[in-house]
């Protein structure tokens, strides 16, 4: 049953030794033959620890996928990348990131963009996109870990704006990075190693280079118009 394979995520190659075939199947869109940057191997002990995080019992093969994700997320900051909980969306060539605690309606809001803009909108990742802090700006990357909705598209986009979503009457305003720090910090994957966590915080400071908005919205066309007009700087015409 043991599998050795490599996947390319956020332009980095991870060689994985897994106990179950399922992990390879789960990552099938990201398989590569390129030389690896990192090696990841899961242990039974880790899978048990992983189970301990959930109140529901999951099959070991599923737990192994989340375990591999955790390994990757712990390594990414070493290569100037972080995992953020949110929905990363690509519209034309621009990337936008919607963040909020689970259940607020990030995915629902992203789907409104798809409803009104059609194929011009792609959801890069619906739950855990990767942010790469490059000399060229901040790049949103996809990966197969995309939450219960299971939405991802193997593509990238340069991050143009972050939208902190909450429910309410439709309204949007731009906020300072330091005023949005709390909302951002709680959605970031914080590595357990001290030096890597420190690196993560260092990288986060670079988010001050993009526009950050606080969006209050319901589920309506007006909700879409509110975020679309502010984030793109365009006026939506149908």
């Amino acid at each position, binding site marked *: 049953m043991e599998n050795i394979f490599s996947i390319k995520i956020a332009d980095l190659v991870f060689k994985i030794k897994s106990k179950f075939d399922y992990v390879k199947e789960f990552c099938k869109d990201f398989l590569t033959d390129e030389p690896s940057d990192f090696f990841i191997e899961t242990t039974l002990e880790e899978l048990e620890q992983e189970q301990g995080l959930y109140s529901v019992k999951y099959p070991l093969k599923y737990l192994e996928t989340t375990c591999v994700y955790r390994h990757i997320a712990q390594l990414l900051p070493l290569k100037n990348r972080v995992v953020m909980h949110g929905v990363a969306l690509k519209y034309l060539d621009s990337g936008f990131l919607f963040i909020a605690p689970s259940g607020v309606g990030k995915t629902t809001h992203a789907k409104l963009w798809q409803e009104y803009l059609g194929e011009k909108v792609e959801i890069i990742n619906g739950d855990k996109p990767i942010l790469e802090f490059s000399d060229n700006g901040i790049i949103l990357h996809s990966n197969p870990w995309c939450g219960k909705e299971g939405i991802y598209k193997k593509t990238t986009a340069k991050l143009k704006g972050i939208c902190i979503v909450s429910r309410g009457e439709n309204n949007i305003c731009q906020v300072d990075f330091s005023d949005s720090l709390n909302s951002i*910090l709680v959605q970031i994957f914080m590595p357990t190693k001290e030096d890597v966590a420190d690196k993560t915080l260092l990288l*986060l400071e670079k988010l001050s280079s993009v526009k950050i908005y606080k969006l209050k919205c319901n589920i309506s066309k007006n909700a879409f118009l509110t975020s679309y007009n502010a984030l793109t700087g365009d006026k939506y015409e149908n």
Partner: protein
Amino acid sequence: MKIKQGFIKRKIQDKYVVVATGEASKTYRNFIELNQTASVIWDEIKNGKTVDQIAELFVKEYLVTLDKATQDINKIVSVLIKEGIICE
């Protein structure tokens, strides 16, 4: 009095944040924001200073009485103890 292992402080723009790493991150999943004064207190605790020693330092450096300084430091220390970030 000392800061428990695994907690790190970092300045992000004009704010100071404390996050848990390693073993500490298993029980502490939140993060806290410190103001300038709390950040200085944090550094002094890290250097092994007691509340009294930090208060004396504050009296030397700021326009503050020993009583007021001690009171303010204790307020911040008690929050950090309550949060489980420092132990006595």
